[in-house]
């Protein structure tokens, strides 16, 4: 099964100059746990911020989420894979890198995201279709 078939194409993003509080608002509104952080400056690269980053790097340290730039806590670089990549290889990559999601890129543009839940569901559907014992 190809990543293209299971990836989420709707990407929620936030500029790196936005505050962590704005990121929290967006995550709560959209009921998601991560955001693509688009660089606001040429020197910065795109990254990803997750609920885990917000809790561990800001809230747990007693920092004010309105005073911290989301770009300062984002994880970089983005882990990008090709949309033609297989689900199995991406699952292995996620295990090796200990990440819960990878971005699907096409010619330098992020076109989708695949999370652990997508991999899990794809594996279950594949199993049901192929009747594994």
């Amino acid at each position, binding site marked *: 099964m190809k990543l293209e078939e299971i990836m989420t*194409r709707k990407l929620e993003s936030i500029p790196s100059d936005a505050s962590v509080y704005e990121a929290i608002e967006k995550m709560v509104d959209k009921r998601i746990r991560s955001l693509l952080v688009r660089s606001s400056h040429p020197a910065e690269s795109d990254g990803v911020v997750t609920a885990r980053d917000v809790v561990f790097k800001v809230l747990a340290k007693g920092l004010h989420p309105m005073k911290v730039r989301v770009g300062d806590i984002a994880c970089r670089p983005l882990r990008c894979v090709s949309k033609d990549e297989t689900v199995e290889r991406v699952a292995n990559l996620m295990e090796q890198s200990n990440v819960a999601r990878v971005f699907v890129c096409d010619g330098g543009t992020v076109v989708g995201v695949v999370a652990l839940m997508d991999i899990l*569901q794809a594996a279950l*559907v594949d199993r*049901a279709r192929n*009747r594994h014992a």
Partner: protein
Amino acid sequence: MLKKFMRGDRKEEAALTAMHEHLDLLCAAGQALSELLSSGSKDLVEKIFDLERDGDAARRRVLSIIFEGAFLPYLRPNLCRFVELVDEAFDTVEDSARYFNLIPLHPSIADECRRIASFNRQMCEILILAFELAVRGEDIREQVLAIRILEKRVDDLKGDIEQKIHEVPVADFWQGKFYSDFLHNLTTFSDLIEDASDALYVLTVSFR
């Protein structure tokens, strides 16, 4: 397992064969709809209409065999419900094709619609597999779960379309209605397949 509850004559065998044929026709129609949304070939609309007519004939055949006395009485309501749900799903494929023929599919939602049609086709294939397993008395839990997962994906895509639908220009009231009916039918198919798989699961559970 279904065969275990037969009463020894050939009516059950004929009913199961007709039910399988009904599902095969549904799958063929789902495949044709998926191709229609990708290629836009209007010949496929006629093909889907023909398949729906054949599906209606298969449904009538199944129901008449059941009413003639196939299967133990306590199984008949659930079997009929399963057949009716498959037939309702058939109607949504036919109506999707009909309304697609009347609208220009807007590029902003075209990809989502094609992906829904592809998921619908996959769900149909899994339902056939579940039916075959149920007839042999095997567990269909994995197939039921896979259908639920795909149904959720269709629901997500439906949500994406609803957010973008305001960007789609409509010429008049009727074009708007046809758009609405097309999207309603395209996205209702997965609900009906999920219901059909649940009905099949209830049947298999009742055999235990």
